[in-house]
């Protein structure tokens, strides 16, 4: 068995798991709020955007909603929003101060590596390409998750305060579009979480232990 190496600092592990709880609460209460009017756009009007989750197509199961009814969902959502933003800020601040962003953020230099990783996953390449803390595809996914969080937070403020923060709302194309982007962010987050969890178990189960204990004893120790 490979020997354990330090992988995640306490601040990363704490913010990761807090974020998991807060994000789950935000999605659950958000779906509860969405149910009050399960369509995008103006009331009883056409607004041609793709929405597979439109209330006319499917009902969101009660089991994944949080709050019981609209006001209950609003109370959860507008309470959890703050710790969700704060843990996100704490994590990003840590990335900046510690310099960890270099190992995490996807940059132009990662493009060839991302191609090699894709080839490896598609079985076009037998050996796992050498990698640092995260491989280039992981970097692209984690960078994307940070961008996604920023989009969901900003579009959330844009639909909460479309008059006082109208500059933000118009940045998203107006209230109806801001609400749409807020929901696109939810679906994308849900897809990301599913892929994230699947990849942990399929590609590198030792990473689950690492994000809990901080120590990594899996196959992909850093080549740097």
């Amino acid at each position, binding site marked *: 068995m490979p020997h354990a190496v330090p992988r995640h600092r306490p601040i990363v592990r704490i913010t990761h798991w807090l974020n998991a709880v807060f994000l789950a609460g935000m999605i*659950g209460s958000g779906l509860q*709020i*969405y149910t*009050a*009017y399960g*369509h995008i*756009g*103006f*009331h*009883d*009007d056409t607004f041609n955007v793709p929405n597979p989750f439109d209330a006319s197509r499917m009902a969101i199961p*009660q*089991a*994944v*909603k*949080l*709050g*019981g009814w*609209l*006001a*209950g969902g*609003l*109370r*959860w959502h*507008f*309470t959890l929003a*703050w710790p969700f933003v704060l843990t996100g800020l704490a994590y990003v601040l840590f990335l900046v101060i510690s310099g960890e962003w270099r190992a995490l953020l996807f940059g132009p230099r990662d493009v060839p590596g991302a191609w090699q990783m894709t080839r490896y996953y598609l079985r076009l390449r037998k050996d796992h390409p050498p990698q640092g803390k995260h491989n280039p595809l992981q970097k692209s996914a984690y960078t994307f998750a940070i961008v996604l969080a920023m989009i969901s937070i900003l579009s959330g403020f844009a639909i909460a*305060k*479309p*008059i*006082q*923060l*109208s500059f933000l709302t118009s940045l998203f194309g107006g*209230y*109806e579009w801001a*609400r749409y982007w807020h929901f696109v962010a939810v679906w994308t987050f849900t897809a990301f979480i599913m892929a994230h969890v699947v990849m942990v178990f399929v590609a590198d189960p030792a990473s689950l*232990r690492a994000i809990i204990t901080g120590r990594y004893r899996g196959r992909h120790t850093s080549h740097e």
Partner: protein
Amino acid sequence: MSESSRIIARRDFIRLASPAVPIALAACGWDGGKHLQPVFDKVIAANNSLGEGLLAVRHAEANPAQIARGQMPSYFVSEGMPTIADPSAWRLEVGGLVRKPTAFTPEMISTLPHINYTITHHCVEGWSVVKSWGGVPFTTFAALVEPMPDAKYVQFDSFDSGYMNGWDIASAMHPQTMLADAFEGKPIAAAHGAPLRLYSPIKLGYKLTKYLTKVTFTDKKIGGYWEDRGYPWFGGL
């Protein structure tokens, strides 16, 4: 305990604990219970103050240059649509902490200077419509009744089975807040709050009292029909 058996024990724990996830999810009608409800109350109260602060600092106005979109649904809490038997006998009583309490007749209101705008309406449910509204700015009524300096809140009462709302004075005095008697270029219909309703593009729909009977300036923070049932009190946009 050896290293490997400790790992297996941990795996067993995860395996044993995993059914708890769907059980926890099934409880998701959860309102937070008696421990979290007070936390919600505190945070939501802070959100309300933040909304008031934002209004005080930015005091933005909604952009009125828009084209009508969507259908404005009719909404009231009474069993049937609230109407008055004799519209000419209806009065709007404006009083409370004011120097000149006044009962406004329909004729008095119709002679006051009106404003009109076509503007986005936001419902707490998430939908919006763009519709045009006409009425008398709230500030006009305030100027006539002369509120006293300690009037920090306004209570709006209706004849819709006790539906009412409490407002902060700054939102009421916003230049786009009006008592509306026209909708889509016509005298307002019973479906939308005739003979007179509160309207403002800076508040969510549930703050906009229809079927008005009374406006009371007060120094007490007044709740509201939906606000007392859990919707945010400030309801500002």
